[in-house]
Every structure is written in structure tokens, then in C-alpha cells.
């Protein structure tokens, strides 16, 4: 009886589910008994605890976060501006279409190698997360704007509602709704692509460099620990940015 009541509580259920997978992970790692292939959650936590007091751990997090955030924010702003302009001017939409199709279709690895030759490794993750996020924000800005109710726009035109009031009350609500969903995808993608770029470019003091080193030295516990750090950072960024977006 008590267990069934506990299971009805969503939070308790979530904790139990996470606990189940952690135990399964631990059991599997013990069964394989090979730290190179699969380390258990205990070893990962120990490895993470060992990383925490080191200066390079925090510096790597700081530099990678700044670069990826820069790439994301600049792509978000430019994507929104271009999306709005393309919604207004059809010729611009047609002009940008081939470039955006190219950005969506080319594999991230090709971009990374090209960018590495062109701009070098220090700014690589900025550039790559920018390229990945730009088409997502651009497309969703146009979708959000086209979701504005035609009948409300007609009402606004009859009553001669000012441009800024139209933007604030008619265009912004559906745009915000669309961008909130898009940002969840885009933020995750910016972290994945940014870190992937760092692993290939190996810039100094970056999470990618640490992952690369873990690979070279076959240090699987460190690899797992850094992966957890990336997941946490990505979640923090998503939470922060969506909170900011809600206040606009």
C-alpha cells in the first residue's frame, strides 16, 4: 500500500527510475570487470571528485562555456534578425535558402575540419556552435511569425494598431512559444557540436582537449566524468536561457 502511494508521486518515481539505471550500470561494470570498456558510477564519481579541486578543470569549463555561449547567442540573434527579415522580404528568404540547406545537410565533422584550416583551433567551437544553431533559430523564427493569427492581423490593420504594438502583442507570443521549443534543441546541439569541434581542434584549456587526452591515455573514468560535466553544463545553460527568454 505504502509503496504504491510512493510510486504515484512523480518525483519519487523519477528518483526510483534513475536509481534503477544506476544500479544496472554498476552491476554491468562489475560483471564486465574491465575499466577500459565500462566504468561504474562509483569510479566516475571518484574521478569527478579528483578533477574538482584542479584549476585546469574549472578553467576548461569556463573557456568552453564562454565560447559555446558566444556561438549560441550570436547565432540566436542573427538567426532571429534574418528570420524576421526573410518573413517580411520573400526575396531574402529565397536568397538564403541554398545556404541554409547547405548548413543543415553538411556533416558537422566536415565543417570542423574546414573551419580548423580557415580559422584555427581557438575560435573553432564558437564558429561551429554558431553554424549549427543559426539554421534552427532562423527556421523557427519564420515558423513562429507565420503562426500569428491572420484574423488578429486583419483586426490590427482595421484599427490601425501601431507597428510596435503589433510586434509586442500579436507577433511576439507565438514567436516566443516556437523559440522556446527550438532553443531546447539548439542549446543541446550547440554543446554537442561545440565539444565535438574542440575534440578535433584540441584548443588549450577546453573540455574537448580534456576528452581528447582521456581518449589518448585510455582514461575511461575521466571520459565519463567529463561527459557528465557536459550534460550538467548543457542543462544549466538551457535552464538559464529559457528563463531569460520567458522574461522578454
Amino acid at each position, binding site marked *: 500500500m505504502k509503496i504504491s502511494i510512493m510510486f504515484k508521486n512523480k518525483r519519487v518515481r523519477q528518483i526510483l527510475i534513475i536509481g534503477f539505471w544506476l544500479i544496472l550500470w554498476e552491476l554491468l561494470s562489475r560483471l564486465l570487470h574491465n575499466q577500459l570498456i565500462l566504468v561504474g558510477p562509483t569510479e566516475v564519481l571518484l574521478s569527478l571528485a579528483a578533477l574538482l579541486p584542479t584549476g585546469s578543470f574549472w578553467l576548461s569549463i569556463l573557456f568552453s562555456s564562454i565560447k559555446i555561449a558566444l556561438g549560441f547567442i550570436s547565432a540566436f540573434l542573427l538567426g532571429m534578425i534574418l528570420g524576421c527579415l526573410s518573413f517580411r522580404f520573400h526575396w531574402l528568404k529565397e536568397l538564403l535558402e541554398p545556404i541554409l540547406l547547405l548548413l543543415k545537410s553538411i556533416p558537422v565533422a566536415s565543417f570542423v575540419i574546414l573551419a580548423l584550416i580557415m580559422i584555427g583551433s581557438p575560435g573553432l567551437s564558437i564558429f561551429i556552435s554558431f553554424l549549427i544553431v543559426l539554421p534552427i533559430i532562423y527556421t523557427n523564427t519564420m515558423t513562429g511569425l507565420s503562426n500569428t493569427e491572420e484574423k488578429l492581423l486583419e483586426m490590427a490593420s482595421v*484599427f490601425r494598431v501601431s507597428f510596435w504594438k503589433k510586434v509586442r502583442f500579436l507577433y511576439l507570443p507565438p514567436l516566443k512559444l516556437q523559440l522556446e521549443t527550438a532553443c531546447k534543441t539548439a542549446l543541446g546541439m550547440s554543446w554537442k557540436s561545440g565539444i565535438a569541434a574542440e575534440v578535433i581542434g584540441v584548443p588549450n584549456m577546453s573540455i574537448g582537449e580534456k576528452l581528447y587526452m582521456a581518449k589518448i591515455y585510455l582514461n575511461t573514468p575521466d571520459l565519463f566524468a567529463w561527459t557528465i560535466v557536459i550534460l550538467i553544463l548543457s542543462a544549466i545553460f538551457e535552464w538559464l536561457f529559457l528563463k531569460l527568454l520567458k522574461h522578454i
Partner: protein
Amino acid sequence: MYLKLSHVQKAYSGKEVLKDYSFCFSSPKTYCIMGPSGCGKTTLFHLICGLEKPDAGSVESSPEKLRFSVVFQEDRLLESLDALKNIQLVTPKEVTGEQILAHLSRILPPESLSQPLREFSGGMKRRVAICRALLAASDVVLMDEPFNGLDPDSRDTTAAYIRDMTRDKIVLFSTHQESDADLLDATICTL
């Protein structure tokens, strides 16, 4: 001030809705547009306020640029905002929030004024749409079935409010009930 329609025609996908319609509406007067469903009442309003263009004929006015306000068939309000904000969207800056609230309280229960519109009944939304059209700066007021969804009591209160607010304007409204024309002392025009 007048609004003159000459030989106006409008068709949708080959189906003629308005055929060679001519009339001159002049101020200050209220006109009740009557006719069966699908006879072109809504189309006529859309042609007058410029939302649609006639296939043939012309819509002229004196002065040339008249200001319109409309009570649409479907209210067209922003459900996430309250009644006051919906009206402030279309009113000039000189009309204060207090003035708007005073107008709203003439046709709506005062306790409802702070609620978002999504919590309003159909009849209450209709009254907000009417108040919005009457407070916006306009020379011509077009109302597409304004009394839809109103009970007899609120119909009388709203009619009195409309009469009070449109004394110097051209008012056109559509309805299926002849009694509505009496409520607004209107001249009946059949489509």
C-alpha cells in the same frame, strides 16, 4: 460624411456573393443590414473597411479617408490579455485606463474586469469587442451580428450603450432579427 457603394460585385471561387450592390450610407445614421445567411453581409463589411477589394464597382467616401472600427463576427480578441489591455491596443493615448474601465463597467459586471479574457463567457467577450469598437477613434462603426450570444437583459444594456456612443457616426450592423433594428433605431437595408 458619406460612404457610397456603386455597382459592387464580389465572388469567391466563381460563386457570386454580392451582385451589383449600390447604396449610399450617410451620417449620423444607423443602418441595419438584413438578409439570409450567406447573402454577403460579412463580405459587405470587409469591402467597406478595406479588408477585401471588390471584383467590380467602387467604394467611395467623403471625406476620402474615413476611420473604421469593426465588431467582427468572431470577436478577434487577444485571449491572454484582460479586457482593458485588449481595448488599450486600439485606443488613442488620450483615452485613459480609468475611462476605459468606466465604459466597460457599463456593460460588464465590475468583478470580471480584472480577469483574463479566456475566463469570459461568449457573451462577455462580445461586449468587450463592442466596447473596443466604440472606444477606438472612428467615423464608421461596422458590427457583424453584435448581439450574438447576449441574453435579453445585456442586449438592452448594450444597445443603450451603442446608441449613446454612436450619435455622430455612420453605424452599420448586421442581424437576422428585425427587433434588433428597433433597439438601435436603425434603418433596415435588405441584401
